[in-house]
């Protein structure tokens, strides 16, 4: 093999080694990051909401005509909320409302069907729940103009071991009646 070719191969080998070392260091730093404590910032202050409103932030609808809009929500992982038609009377259903005086009236709501769910320690009791993301179809009637509507979603969330008190969150939507 010529001397030049040998030198080139040595340089390539050293370069290869340097790239490998850099990659190993990057992976090692990822390992360190993954092992850091979850609570190094100290005790937590406020609880995150179990359900959040995702979208839409703004809709345009024909004024004075009933129009259906889809409201999208997300439930925190590991939690579920009762559907609009829970399996037992004492359970609190998920409901949507719009306060009076906003210029937008709620004409009707179609809720998604609930999913059958049982707690691991009570397999004989079937619950009807939502989990993950879900969509509520709200039929609204808006007077002409721009309206900031604060729709309200009332729900009651649980995980497999505990339940949170019923809560109401606001879904703020700008409704433009044209």
């Amino acid at each position, binding site marked *: 093999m010529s001397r030049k070719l040998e030198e080139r191969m040595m340089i390539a080998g050293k370069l290869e080694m340097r790239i490998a070392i850099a990659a190993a260091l990057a992976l090692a730093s990822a390992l360190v990051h993954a092992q850091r404590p979850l609570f190094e910032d100290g005790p*937590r202050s*406020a*609880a995150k909401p179990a359900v959040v409103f995702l979208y839409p932030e703004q809709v345009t609808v024909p004024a004075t005509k009933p129009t259906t809009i889809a409201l999208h929500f997300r439930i925190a*992982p*590991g939690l579920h909320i009762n559907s609009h038609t829970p399996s037992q009377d004492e359970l609190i259903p998920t409901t949507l409302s719009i306060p009076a005086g906003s210029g937008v009236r709620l004409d009707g709501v179609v809720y998604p069907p609930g999913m059958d769910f049982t707690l691991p320690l009570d397999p004989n009791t079937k619950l009807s729940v939502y989990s993950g993301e879900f969509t509520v179809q709200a039929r609204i009637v808006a007077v002409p103009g721009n309206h900031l509507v604060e729709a309200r979603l009332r729900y*009651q969330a*649980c995980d*497999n071991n*505990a339940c949170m*008190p019923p809560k109401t969150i606001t879904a703020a939507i700008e409704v433009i009646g044209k």
Partner: protein
Amino acid sequence: MKRNTLVITTVLFILAAFAWAGWANWEYRRQAAERLQATATQGELVLDASGVPQYLSPLQGKPAPPFTLEDLSGNKVSLASFKGHALAINFWATWCAPCKIETPWLIDLRNQYAAQGFEVLAVSADDIDRNDPKKFSDEKQEIARFVQRMKMPYPVLIDADSISKSYDGLDALPTSYFVDRNGTVVAVQLGMTTKEELEKNIKKALGIVK
């Protein structure tokens, strides 16, 4: 050269596998913490020996905050009247499915340890509306029906909301405070666990175990 490449590739593969395992473990712990964060507010999250987040109440080791609440017949019942008893102050609600699972365990354990001076005070967190007498009466009847169905033999009090601030905010049910005969909170259980865990905490309250 080829051998070098093979060694380097193998080492990188092993490191990548470790990195993935580390990420997966962190992601699992983050989701567990997120779930717990969604249910707990005023307590601290601390890691137990296995690195899993656990709830530590600010009331642990402190005197149980005093209260006087009504039972379903309208009689006033105070915590002070149970001085000298070991207690489980159990916060629950009719809409709480895990509470329905836990209640039969509490009943069994209360009956087992009652002779040793143990009692359960069940405090309902169901909403009540004192401003509307008819609604208030209906709400109490609904709680009473539930109590009868579950055959709770111990005192049942209403209006947990009125004392929630002194008891960590009560943002998750069931929550139980185990109180020893001196009135000190020796254990707090957030959420349903197991009958064995309940019994362990009852024994702590009775002073049988530490």
